[in-house]
């Protein structure tokens, strides 16, 4: 009787030990796995580079007179053909000039992509936008405007 009780006690103690060992191993595995397979989310960097390129580069919309004037938009360049060529990206991009009420995009499906992005998991941010105060130059005449840029990275 005493021997039986001793045996049961030992079995229980071993079961607990095995359970704890498995738990500890699982935790160590999770920690190591998490640190090794950590992904860096560079979506915001990609979006930021694209956004800045639109008003910094003369290949996009920045005015080029004698030198390039970042932040000054050449209105003659502000069209969809140029947007597609200068960014050369599959990510949907939309630009609009608030005061002039002119909007261009590199895809016809920007709004659909935007709606899809809005219902996506909030932790996986996919919509990036920026508002930049710019000057507009058209045929020697200069005015100010607000350039809204939206980029969807999915």
């Amino acid at each position, binding site marked *: 009787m005493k021997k039986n009780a*001793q045996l049961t*006690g030992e079995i229980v*103690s071993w079961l*607990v*030990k095995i359970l*704890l060992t498995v*738990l*500890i191993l699982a*935790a*160590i595995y999770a*920690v190591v796995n*998490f*640190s090794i397979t*950590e992904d*860096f*989310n*560079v979506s*915001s*960097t990609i*979006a*930021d580079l694209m*956004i*800045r390129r639109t*008003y910094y580069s003369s290949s996009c919309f920045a005015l080029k007179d004698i030198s390039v004037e*970042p*932040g*000054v938009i050449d209105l003659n360049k502000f069209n969809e053909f140029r947007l597609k060529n200068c960014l050369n990206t599959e990510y949907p991009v939309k630009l609009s000039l608030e005061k002039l009420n002119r909007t261009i995009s590199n895809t016809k499906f920007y709004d659909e992509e935007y709606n899809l992005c809005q219902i996506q998991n909030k932790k996986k941010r996919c919509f*990036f*936008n*920026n*508002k*930049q*105060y*710019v*000057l507009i130059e058209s045929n020697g005449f*200069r*005015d*100010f405007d*607000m350039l809204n840029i939206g980029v969807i990275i999915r």
Partner: protein
Amino acid sequence: MKKSMIVGTFIMDFFSILTVIAILIIFNLLIPKEVAYVNIKEIKHVITSEKVVSDSGITLKNLLNTRVDNLNLYEFILLNKNDEPKIKLKINELMSFICKFDKQLLIKDPDNICFWNLKIISKDKDLSIKSKSDQVIVSPIIDGGTGDIIVLDKEGNPEILGFTGNRDFKTRFSNSIILPDYENNIITIEFNLYKGI
């Protein structure tokens, strides 16, 4: 004897679990989380930080080059240096287009909340211009707001007294530019922009 051994083993296992928890916490602290642009201090933050922000350098340059009464704003400031209200009015007019704030924005679109202040420092005097909202602003939680309170100091620098502690703006920029006036005296223009909560 047997009992004490079991108790000992349990204690050891308990401490093993504690060690694992400690390791987890340390790893969690070491792995950089997403940080606001303004808080970037180390290279590891650069990889994961939120980068899409307004370019205040371009904003200041464009602001000073904006056409005002057939002049650019900087020339307008120089020519009207003795008429402070006129300068303030014109800058406020332009800045209200660039940087907007109202209570509805605080509730519906807190990312685009914006405050600013601008200082023109010359040899003779300083001129300080700031966002028009110079009172304490409260975002009521019942309206779906965050419960944040934004307070502006005398200089026009805003501070967020958050519902769960003080917070910083997502974007906080400080730019200054030194330019000569018509008599070759130095004029410093300081521009601060605070955006998004």
